[in-house]
């Protein structure tokens, strides 16, 4: 049964190192490379920005909604959509429908593949485990939101105080 945790992506903390990418591809496919990763990093070197991209575990998932064969479907046990390679026909509909670009096409099989939260990995998903800056975390979304709410409030209060003093 799903423990309710999902992957959360915070670009403000992403250093763009792609440790997540190499870990993901090695763990799932036994090879290392960007083309085999379920998580990606969009880098914008000129401005020093990086954005981690992965499956956001939508509850109303467009990837499953558009799949013509039922290969891509919500797995309620795991709390995330999964793609059954036996049913996948490689049509790329799910990849195009994903609002984040979190679905990839396999260079050997031509079929779609996506994040499965490293099902069964004791330490949780490898991307979050290997992320050196806390840009990808594996958390209960409600708890993470509470923390974020408090952090943001503290920030605003601090700014207001500085404003008063200044």
């Amino acid at each position, binding site marked *: 049964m799903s423990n309710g945790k999902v992957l959360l992506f915070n670009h403000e903390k992403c250093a763009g190192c792609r440790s997540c990418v190499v870990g993901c591809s090695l763990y799932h496919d036994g090879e290392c490379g960007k083309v085999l990763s379920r998580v990606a990093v969009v880098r914008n*070197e000129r401005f020093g920005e990086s954005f981690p991209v992965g499956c956001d575990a939508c509850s109303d998932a467009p990837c499953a909604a558009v799949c013509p064969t039922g290969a891509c479907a919500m797995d309620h046990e795991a709390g995330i959509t999964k793609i059954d390679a036996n049913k996948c026909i490689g049509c790329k509909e799910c990849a195009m429908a994903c609002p984040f670009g979190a679905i990839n096409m396999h260079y050997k099989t031509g079929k779609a593949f996506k994040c499965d939260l490293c099902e069964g990995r004791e330490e949780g998903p490898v991307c979050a485990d290997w992320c050196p800056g806390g840009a990808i975390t594996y958390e209960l979304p409600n708890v993470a939101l509470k923390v974020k709410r408090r952090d943001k409030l503290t920030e605003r209060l601090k700014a207001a105080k500085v404003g008063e003093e200044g």
Partner: protein
Amino acid sequence: MNGWAGQRLRVDLTTGEITKEPLSFEYRKKWIGGRGFNSEVIYNEVPPSLDPYDPKARVCFGVGPMSGSAAPSTGRVTVTAKSPLTGGFGDANMGGHWGAEVKYAGYDQIIVQGRAKKPVYIWIDDDKVELRDAGHLWGKFPREADQMIKEELGDEDIHIMMIGPAGENMVRFACTFNDVWRAAGRTGTGGVLGSKNLKAIATRGSGTVKVADPKKLMDVCNRLRQAFKNDPMKMGLYEFGSLCLINVANRDGWFPWKNFQGGAHPDANNLSGETHAATVLKHREGCYACPICCGRFTQIKDGKYAGEEFGGPEYEHAVPTGPRVGIIDDANDIWHNCCLTNDYGMDAIECGGTIAAAMEWYQRGLITTKDTGGLELEWGNAEVVATLIEQIGQRKGFGNILAEGADRASDKLGLGDEGHYYTITTRGMTLPGDDPRGLGFGYGLSFSVGTRGGCDHLRSLCCLELSGALYPGLNTRLLGDESACKPVTVNSKPYMVYYEENQKATTDCLNVCCFTTHWSYAVLTPDQVEYLNAVTGLDFTEEDFQEVGERIYNLERAYWNRCMSGSREDTVPERFLKEPMPQGVDYQTNVGVTFPLNDMLSQYYRYRDWDSKSGFPSERKLKQLGLDYVAKDLAPLRSKYVSETEKKKKKYYV
């Protein structure tokens, strides 16, 4: 093939010929990768007498079997050429993501030779390789050219190696960059690319690194990445970048104040990593697969440079363009200088070091405003420094002389031995911002014998001598002597340097970052052997690891020997030998120290099995390392070099 791509790419810019050459199993086993492959090519294909800017000269870009894999920090590239700065063997090493991309495109090495008739760039799209016009990119800063190439090729996610205007203008210490900001800084490889009319190599790789034993690799990487989470050096580097060293350097007296006239300053904290993080840090940056992420991205917030943005700086970037030239009051001046050296694309160490030498010539009255085109080279004059950086990048005015590097500039100005006293160089290359009287005697020894122009910190990177408090017991484990963990002692230092130089050379062949292996010490030789074997499926041992490093080190040394550079040149700037360290702050730990090179050098030669008179590797050692052809090359030169000893002085460059 597991680990390696198994082939190298050779591009001849004169003929436009593009060839792919397979790399045999024996070759890969003997040289492993990046630095090994490159050094071998330079030794065999670039004669010591050749002008580094001759079209026949080569520039090699090498990656290793670990490049692009999941091991910690696998994005590095070694760039190697005959150095236009020193005239001898030159290489430099850069991080970023381009190295992994080259591997994914299917190459272990790229060799560039010849000279294009007009500016070009190379576009590598996996196995499709072509030369494209770069006329419109010539003269552009890397940040502009990067965008133009990406737009032209219609892919924002490719990775690009390139040079800046300094490389085009053949400044002798121009850098090679990738991902806009990651520099292979030293020895002037950028100018060699400029001489070939090559602006950039844009690369798209859609392959993968095949792994012989994925489960084993996953286990090692899990363990190592876990270790980094608690590693004390990782935490400092992640939080503050390598600028985390500033306050340490100041305490231990190796902060290069005014061309090493001092070793500490009360205001050093102005440019510390702590201050940087609290004021101008926009973002942290990581090279490929790195668990440390020491890279910085800076945005200046106020003052006349407000809004200026650039990737960096790191310690060796901020120090030469700041305290080394006497700038310390306003850190924004330093960040601006860092930004300029990036945009022009040149080695900040050599650039700042050369300006610092010029400032000292000015201070001592060796040059006047008549020589400098009216510029008053007073210490700490930020405007003059910024002007000089631009002049050097454009090869204009007094900057055109300084663009030759400190030692050549001294000769061009006719300053004689006194001029050279103030160039803080060995073998023609400026020392980094690390004073051996404080950072450590191992570092100093390493400066004297290093194989890329002598004076380099990245040949041994013997941080073991700094590691005492952070990694207790490590020196006992690796060297059998815990007392070696103090910087200002000669204990076990010759062996430490010998050991770390070999270790570092092989690390450069794997092309993993030495901050994972020589700074943080989270990854030691047994771990490296383990991941190398997991990826390649071979059975390297720790002894092999040392032997490959030793082979490379001796080959590079032999290149210098063929340039008639040996024991006479194995020294450090006289300032460190003669002038006791003055007091800069009251908590400084190394007041009065001079650097005792002679207590260590002969012992180091013995570990190396180098001839005590000439400093050439012994025939026995070379044969033992499988370098019989090198022994043959050196045979007629040994006695010649020694007989030259009587009548000739040390060469400042070759």
